[in-house]
């Protein structure tokens, strides 16, 4: 059966994920070393050690995301994160930067390493580079590939593959997107924050709610219109060709209907996005996919609750997995 990899932004969410049936939980330290560096979120060193003990006691694994790119003047922060996660007993480290991958492979040769989606490794040659040079055992594939492409990559790769099945849909080349940085000076790649909340404002106007990022208007939602995150890639803009969503609608990925195809493609693990979400999200989404996977294994029809209430814009898509525009 494919592994279910679940998000946790807090120790309480980690426990919820275990209770709901996660095979593994990914989390990060409360600093700029992970790509979900939001206020009030993430784990202290002590919380991580306790979380690992709890997970191992319940038969689950902990994967630690150290998946931002080290600043030249502060590489020690990232090295310390690798050392502390390894010594805490993490089952794997999820890394993006090749320098950090090299450090982890040399200093902790027995530590299992995964290639973060932030590395944007999207072809067998790139994946082979991580596997051959650093002993990486798994790659988290970018959300820009179709299921047949995933099958081909998995067939040709020495690494296990892990793919996203639910949550925020990043439509850019991950680890290389500078939209947030352009608007705010901060990005998920360096500071661990896409659309940092310190630069977000919501304003109630006669036309509805106006969301802005770094002074740029991202969207204006009517009073009954579903809303999305205030990210530039999901913004609604006026252009010479008209007004609308230029890059992508506010919508979440939901690959529930594609689980059989992903299994047949040879995928090892399914990942749920959402370390910034609350316990209610973690509990419901993890339980949903645990049930769907059980139904897939038994060959029965899964009658499962809709995840629509948890989706951005109250809408979902299978994204590039069922690519029709190429």
């Amino acid at each position, binding site marked *: 059966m494919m592994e279910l990899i679940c998000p946790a932004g807090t120790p309480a969410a980690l426990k919820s994920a275990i209770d709901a049936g996660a095979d593994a939980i990914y989390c990060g330290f409360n600093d700029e070393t992970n790509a979900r560096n939001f206020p009030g979120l993430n784990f202290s060193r002590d919380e991580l050690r306790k979380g690992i003990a709890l997970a191992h006691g319940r038969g689950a694994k902990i994967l630690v995301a150290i998946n931002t790119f080290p600043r030249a003047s502060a590489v020690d922060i990232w090295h310390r994160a690798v050392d502390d996660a390894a010594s805490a007993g993490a089952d794997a480290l999820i890394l993006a930067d090749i320098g950090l991958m090299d450090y982890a492979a040399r200093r902790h040769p027995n530590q299992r390493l995964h290639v973060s989606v932030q590395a944007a490794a999207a072809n067998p040659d790139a994946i082979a580079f991580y596997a051959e040079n650093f002993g990486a055992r798994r790659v988290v594939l970018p959300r820009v590939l179709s299921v047949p492409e995933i099958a081909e990559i998995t067939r040709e790769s020495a690494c296990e593959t892990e793919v996203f099945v639910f949550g925020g849909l990043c439509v850019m080349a991950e680890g290389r997107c500078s939209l947030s940085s352009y608007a705010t000076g901060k990005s998920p790649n360096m500071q661990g924050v896409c659309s940092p909340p310190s630069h977000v404002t919501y304003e109630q106007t006669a036309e509805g709610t106006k969301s802005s990022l770094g002074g740029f208007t991202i969207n204006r939602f009517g009073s009954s219109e579903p809303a999305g995150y205030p990210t530039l890639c999901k913004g609604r803009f006026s252009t010479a060709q008209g007004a609308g969503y230029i890059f992508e609608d506010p919508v979440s990925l939901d690959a529930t209907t594609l689980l059989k195809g992903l299994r047949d493609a040879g995928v090892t693990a399914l990942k749920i996005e959402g370390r910034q979400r609350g316990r*209610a999200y973690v509990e419901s989404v993890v339980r949903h996919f645990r049930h769907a996977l059980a139904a897939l294994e038994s060959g029965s029809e899964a009658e499962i609750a809709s995840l629509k209430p948890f989706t951005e814009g109250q809408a979902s898509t299978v994204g590039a997995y069922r690519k029709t525009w190429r």
Partner: protein
Amino acid sequence: MNDPSAASPGPLPTIPPLVALAMRPLPLLPLQLALGGVLQRIYRRNPAIFDRLGDHARARFGIKPIDLPFAFVVEARPRLSVVRDLPRGLDARISASLANLLALLEGRVDGDALMFSRELVVEGDVEAVLALRNAIDDAQLDLAEELSSLFGPLGAPARRAFEATRGRVIASSGHGEQSR
């Protein structure tokens, strides 16, 4: 375990306008004293909330239940005021139905999901609001337990009454016990 085949939950109910109107003349001071005591107890029992608030531990939050004729000003010191209208100068304002605000406090609903469905409105310092939301979500509060502490020796029956009320509200919307 909740039934995974159950329909997805609908919106939590709001307080009927006539009931809210009837509450308008009520004095605010007794409510302020009672809830202030509950807030102090919550912070005393969950000091990690301060850690997660970080730089925002001194922020003043205005909480406005849209279906009640009064609002709350909350500070992490801890301090709580009950007011008819939220004052100016707050760091952030959060408004939603009372049921949604209570469900958020207990981690039974997801804050982002409420934003997407427009059932939660945030204004002001979004970073402070996120820190507060994450701190509270991690605290795993049980409001029936916290509120029943007000009732001294009658705490046990009060708790059962609060739990029964909560159960009826949750059941009416299709929300399961998924976040316990």
